[in-house]
């Protein structure tokens, strides 16, 4: 299935080399975590290696699936369907936007 992933983070863009990209994955039931593990960075680490710590989304990042923060869904175990749009953002704007 095809998915779109957008990296609203300078550090992540530097590591992975893109702002927005479409990716193709094989699988019937994939989770957000599966997809993050699939996206590789330039230095061999995956996106999951960077944004997940202790089994949770690192406090530095927020992940949105189709416009919803995955924390309000099923976290990293949230299932993703074909055509899904994932955005990984720095939480730089947390206090401003998340007031």
């Amino acid at each position: 299935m095809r998915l779109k992933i957008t990296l609203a983070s300078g550090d992540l863009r530097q590591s992975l080399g893109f702002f927005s990209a479409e990716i193709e994955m094989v699988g019937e039931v994939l989770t957000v975590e599966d997809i993050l593990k699939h996206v590789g960075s330039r230095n061999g680490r995956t996106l999951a290696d960077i944004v997940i710590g202790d089994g949770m989304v690192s406090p530095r990042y927020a992940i949105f699936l189709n416009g919803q923060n995955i924390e309000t869904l099923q976290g990293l175990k949230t299932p993703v369907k074909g055509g899904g749009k994932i955005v990984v953002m720095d939480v730089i704007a947390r206090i401003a936007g998340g007031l």
Partner: protein
Amino acid sequence: MSSTVSDDRWIPSQCYMCIHGCGIIAHVVNGVLVKIEGNTDDPDNMGKLCAKGNAGIMKLYDATRFKQPMLRVGGRKGPGIKPEWERVSWDEALSVVVDELGRIRRKDPRKLVTSIAEFQRMWCWGWPLAYGTPNYFTAHGTYCGSAYHPVNAMTDGSFATFPDLNYCNYLIMIGATDGFEAHLHLSGSAKRMADARRRGMKLVVVDPRLSVAAAKADEWIPIIPATDGAFALGLMHVLLVELDRYDKEFIKNHTNGPCLVGPDGLFVRDERTRKPYVWDLHDDTLKIYDDPTVREPALTGEYGAGTPSFQLLLNEVTKWNPEKVAKITDVPAKTIRRIAREYVEAAQIGATITINGRVYPLRPACVQYYRGAQSHKHGILDNMALKLINTIIGNIDVPGGHLGVPVYGQLAIWPGEDGMHHGMPINPIEKWQFEPKFPPDSTHLIEFVPVGQGHFGGGHISALTVLEPAKYMLNYEPEALFILHCNAPYNMPETRRVLKAMEKFKFIVAVDVYPSEASDYADVILPDHTYLESWSMCESEAPFIIGPGFRQPVVKPLYDTRDATDICSELAERLEFLDRWNNVLNHFFELYKKPEYMLEPDKKYCIEEILDRYFRANFGDEWSLERVREKGHMVRLRTPEELYMPYGRLRIPVYYEFMQRVKYKMDRFFAETGLQWDLSDFRPIPTWLESPIHQDLEHTLYAINYKSSLHAFSDSTANPWLREIMLRHPEMPYVLINRDTVAKLGLRDGEKVRITSKFGEAEAVIKTTEGIHPNVVAMTNMGHWCSHPVAGTAGGVNHNIFLSAGLDYTDMATGVFETAAKVNIERA
């Protein structure tokens, strides 16, 4: 001389004479704005518009506006010193700013402090974070609810509150004037309040001053300042201890009241699920709170595994009998008992109402409160008590009751790890995170004041740390100040200390419309458009409605000014952090909802482009800026399903366990670092603690500040129409004092007096009245000294002079400061 009308238009837009943004229509004739009226198509204000909104025209045509960028010439700064300016090009002014802020950013970005109060462009609050400094604060603490917002969020994910005037029959308003003089969406609220009164709603106002609300109420109850929390505890005592009348079903089924608390003050939880236990009286068994077999959860008593949290509330409330409370508040015990009885009888506990085919509890009684009631030394505790006097009658977010109001969109309510409302103090999109840190990074010490929105309440702490960074543990010296529509010298407590802090900054840049006490200290002025010349959208703590209002230019910019958002973008590009700034905008405008509309990292966007993307991403591809412009706004009434019981099956707190957890974290941190810090405000159950003003026996009178419908913060005092009304007002230019008190002091009505507190002094003219508690004096938004010819010559006295910015006058959980003072008054 004849004139020809060739172009006569009414243009819809959004007001910005206060933070809330009523819908307006602007009458423009031949390119000249001649009239502003309320927009009858906007369900928020329904065509109503307050005096400020009508007077907005004079903001546009203010002759003293900043007409182009300016650099300061001459170095002296201070009160009474009129700055001298050299007009320069935008490029010259921006170059100076970029040189200074770029140098600081390369060295240590924390050395930049920012002071931002742009409420209708709140995305600008994220600019400092994109720059790389944690130091940003608003300066409206005297007028705001820095402890109110966190307790609202902990309770039901709300930011503010409002009585459900659709159904409420009995409203107690404490230290607030909603629907009369100030607070949420005044124009629409005044109409809703008038309708509720006409319907027969009884209104009781508790306030040291006979406010407009009190004057129109059924009953006015004068009270000693900063004792409102004790009053709420007294009401609770009557309901819970003396009458045993409260909504037991609501407490059992919709709150954490039955959850068992252990000796450590934390819930006793199931190890696997992390869910709290309750004690089921039906079969005398310990069960997880959401076990479907629970039939009769205990609210009172003590059990081997723990004590129901409601019992702990009861234990505390038992201490606050009306006789004790009367001594503190000066409200007679019999009045407290009568009001409590009237309140609970009006609540109709057990009643229901069917709306759109759905059955809701009906609780047509509410306690509404705001700044005057709870912006005090122990504001968090006051707020918890004032919230719980609502919760115990089961009126939270139900018809007729106490409604949570989000800052925008929906309430931030969702399950925490235990399946109850998350109970966190702010409305985060992400998880609440707090780690105390030594040395702290921020000038407002947010690292040590974890529960409040530090930039709201703790702004005044920056005045302390800027002056003495080492004393307050900072390991750097703040150097520069970036001001965006914020007037710290006027709005912050302990004026003389704030002025010293302003003088200490080596470089100050101000983005503003016209001169203020703050911009008088600037080295560079970057002039903003007025709201009548610019684009924006704003949804800000609106009761009953949802969706953004829409601001569009009603006239072309009159001068060589720029939009504040565009100024922020330009600076971000020149200072090489445009990607981070665009990320702030992506986040704030929720462009991640449709990634195709997200701002690309290295491209600068103007505000029109950003708004176009915002509307398309949030309302659908067809909602271009042009289409929204034609419609005029995106505001609609909330449906009953959106308004009532948004928490559904999620339990809300009567026990703020979060506060206990934070206290443990703070305890550990301070034990490890050896630092001294007052943690008395960190409690899961409210109590009432004295403020330093109650302990100040050297001064005899309490001094309070009150709000007027004519003004919002300090900005509107520069408006000549509003000034004219104000100076003709029978009370506003004066300090209000009780007639009996004047007689005791040997003074006369209209006499000039000297007012003195521990922290400052000023002269003022007194006005005698029976409409104020004998131990209290009151003043409003006056006493400017800035170079603006209208604001700076209006007279009156600034209340902030008498307040303290010290930590000993600060709520250490939320950062709110004591907004009442203790003063002496003598003939000048």
